[in-house]
């Protein structure tokens, strides 16, 4: 029954927004803005850019709600997430910021150990992802969180599929290294205590 209520809820919201009901827009915004902010923030690190991406995303969501097709529970959330991801990636590509990796880090250590993330808070994991260089970060996000294939990523970013794969490998290794360093840091703090 809860699912049925949610179905009515998502479809009703969409229908109301299509009619131009502002209260429904506010409601949708309130329900999902924190989630969508977290999604966008994985891609876009600058606060002003983040704000722009979210603003544009919501405007796009409201204006193209007519294109949304309900496909089960959570489909509205997923649809909005896709819009936010596309806006984020679009902004990154448009900006083309020139960013240098620190010297010596262009060949991240490829550790064979299993990376332990259980003990790391989500906010820390989120922060570590945001710390990745934009190219690595974008591809890792698209592969891991949006579950896109390297072929789809290559099409979206207009790169070769092999490039997406190799970039993803480096990104993963870099993130693993960061997590490992964070563990060491936490451990050293624990010992100090």
């Amino acid at each position, binding site marked *: 029954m809860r699912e049925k209520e949610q179905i009515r809820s998502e479809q009703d919201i969409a229908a109301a927004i299509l009619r131009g009901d502002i209260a429904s827009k506010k409601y949708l915004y309130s329900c999902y803005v924190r989630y969508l*902010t977290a999604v966008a923030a994985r891609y876009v690190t600058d606060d002003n850019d983040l*704000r722009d991406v979210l603003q544009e995303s919501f*405007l796009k969501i409201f204006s193209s709600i007519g294109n949304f097709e309900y496909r089960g529970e959570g489909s509205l959330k997923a649809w909005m997430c896709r819009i936010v991801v596309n806006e984020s990636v679009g902004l990154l590509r448009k*900006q083309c910021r020139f960013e240098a990796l620190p010297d010596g880090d262009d060949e991240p250590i490829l550790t064979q150990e299993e990376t332990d993330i259980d003990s790391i808070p989500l906010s820390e994991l989120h922060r570590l992802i945001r710390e990745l260089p934009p190219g690595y970060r974008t591809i890792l996000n698209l592969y891991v969180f949006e579950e896109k294939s390297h072929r789809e990523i290559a099409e979206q970013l207009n790169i070769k599929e092999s490039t997406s794969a190799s970039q993803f490998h*480096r990104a993963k290794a870099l993130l693993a290294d960061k997590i490992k360093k964070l563990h060491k840091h936490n451990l050293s703090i624990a010992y100090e205590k």
Partner: protein
Amino acid sequence: MKNDWLKKLRDRMADYEMDAPDGLWDAIEKSSAGKRDAAANIRRVVPANWRRAAALAAAAAVAGVLLWKVFTPASPLLLIEPASDAPLTSDVAAVSGESPELRIADAVTAKPQGRRTLSQPSANSISGPQPDVQPIACSDTTATAPDTIFTAPEPKKPLSSYDRYHDEYHALPPLPAKKTQHKFVVGLNASGMKGAGGNAGTQSDRFPISDCSHGNCLASPNPTEDALSSRRAPAKLPEMGKADFHHKMPVRAALSLSYQPAPRWMVGTGVTYSYLQSDIDHQSFMYKMQGQQQLHYMGVPLNVSYLICSWRRLNIYVSAGGAAEKMISGKMSAEYKPFGIRAEHISESFEEKPWQFSVNAAMGAQLDITPAIGLYVEPGVSHYFDDHSELNTIYKDRPWTFNLNFGLRFTIATSKR
């Protein structure tokens, strides 16, 4: 390396939330209201492509009328210009070496039953039916008032055809006393000024930028191969993002050959060469790139010109026409500066060599330095059609351009027998 921890990462962070930026909803609301107002205030404007279509249709109509006037027999010009082997008055006079004015004046003042200095025209003396212009010569000796010999619609007064022509067209230079000549004109011209004029800087959406990620450029022993991965679309640059193209004004040189089928008309063709240069720059989070695109075109133009008026040695005319050009070679060269790595130089020749079609209209002024040599300047407007290629050229960014042609024309006169 296993991906289990990444799967775990995804699952753990699936519903992760964080605080939205302050004032975001207000900004959304404001922006949304602004867009609604803008939508309400949009004026009805004719879409740009309709305007272009209308202008093209107008240019085509003008060109069509000009061409029609050249080839339509019902033209007062034919009073002067012999259109066939059968002699008309002026031609008779011309053949006999006498001044045409005199002969025509004789014809005008001749009484209907008086002597005829005019020859009998053949049935085909003037090609096609002539509702407005009757043959000057007539076999009918019955009463015909002198002022009705010329049955052209205007004017009725018994002017010589030369005088009438002179009056109508305001100071047209005197007709040569010799037989009518047809002229060939060879021209050399140039247009555009390299490096001068506006730069059409543009961000191009048409050029998705491919490949050569940082990783590949570092690792690959042959960055050229990775970078220029697509041979199909030469303008693809090896980077993520979009490149800025700064187009320089095209430079064109032409050799033209024109023919004068009638005193005021010129029909011409020739060969043109154009050089298009664009500076490209691009920055991404991978690296920085600066480059240059160089395109070479050769083409064949077709133009029709009409002389509006002449004064002493200065001739003012209008012309319209089109051109078909083919890219004969194109090259893009760039320097890539990935961070931490020394710069790479990459150069690629374009495989795609599209055709470029255009139409143009211009007004020109020609100064005849000598009877055979003229110096001209010709400001005009051109429209370049989309070549449906992936190339980024100034013609794509500015299909309508103003151009300034200048050059020399050499007249080679040949006589009609």
